[in-house]
């Protein structure tokens, strides 16, 4: 999340992804850095114990959103 904010601050497009239970934490970090409306993506929690196949599926599902966010930017 912070990496994404820092990349954007130096003009490098980025898409940060959190799991859904951390949306409130991501928003709080964005407020800390003075970008309260910072846009980031979210996927279901948890991910640490997923199988390789499940992870691949998650990646396939969110990839279009990543591309869209990077192309749109933070505006």
């Amino acid at each position, binding site marked *: 999340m*912070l990496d994404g904010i820092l990349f954007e601050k130096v003009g490098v497009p980025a898409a940060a992804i959190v799991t859904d239970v*951390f949306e*409130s*934490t991501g*928003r*709080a*970090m964005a407020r*800390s*850095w*003075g970008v309260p409306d910072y846009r980031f993506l979210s996927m279901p929690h948890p991910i640490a114990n997923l199988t390789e196949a499940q992870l691949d599926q998650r990646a396939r599902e969110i990839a279009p959103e990543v591309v869209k966010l990077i192309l749109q930017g933070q505006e």
Partner: protein
Amino acid sequence: MTTSLTSTRHAVTDLAQAMELCFEKGWTDGLPVVPPTEAAVRDMLEAAELAPGEELAFITNRQVAVTAEKVAINAVMAGCRPAFMPVVVAAIEGIGDPRWAYHGPGTSTAGAAVLMIVNGPIARELDFNCGDNLFGPGWRANATVGRAVRLVMRNVIGSRPGTLDRGTLGHPGKLSYVIAENELDSPWTPLHVERGFRAEQSTVTVMAAEAPHQFYNQLSSTAAGLLTTCCDDMRISGNVVGQSQYALVLAGEHMRTISAEGWSKADVRSFVFEHTQNTVAHLKRTERLAGPVEAGDERARRPLVASPADILVVAAGGRAGAFSAYIPGWGSRKASEAVTTLIKDRRA
């Protein structure tokens, strides 16, 4: 530097209303706080000879400057005597140190608290408990200094449950988690001297830490026997594979038994390092390490800590009772390590 206090003033009619206002504003840890009047805040700053705007820490990942004024306000709220303020300041400097790396242990689901170990003459002058009921309530210095640090984390740095404090369980040490080393009874080199300070200096060591895990053995009369009991408990604890630091708090009976054999703290560290290692095979079978058990895994060993130096040995606790405790640190030492800071005796 200006001596003006810049924090917002709130008008109240009496003490009860002031205490309720602090609850309403979300400034407390769930217990009532002492309302921070300007006079009390000034006394706190004066005791540490600090200007209100002096920056004591900068939390990079939060972009938060922690000023002396805010620390003083929270120290008053926590119930500190002004004389405790230099200890609170040293602890804040510790958690603001890049080696402690605030954002990880301050936010993580692992729910670490800030274990604070006070060493040196100030521990005795200010009556920090180093004996009976070590981790329990009953001592103002222990209870309020740790509470002040936690209130700063909450009210200044933003570590609030549900947003920037995501501890899944947390533990009671997040209210206050302060001990002193029993330097008068201990036969060993004090922690702060091991960490580069002089015995007559006073320090606070901050470590991101789980709750204390008590272990018991009153049958054994040998250092190896007692520490084997400790290692049996400790081998599978904490993050297990993360290689965090650990604190090992040896109370009276165990301290005397171990030291009677001539064991130093370094000997304790070396023994515990050797006897808390797991085989890679076990860690894989129990799914703490990924992957199938392979040739050599039954013999390959993974130490619980990266080095014996990552076990902080502290002599503290009651004289009676065959109990001691180990305390797993947070995450890994690479992500956060214990920091010892000098308590500046500004009165001298």
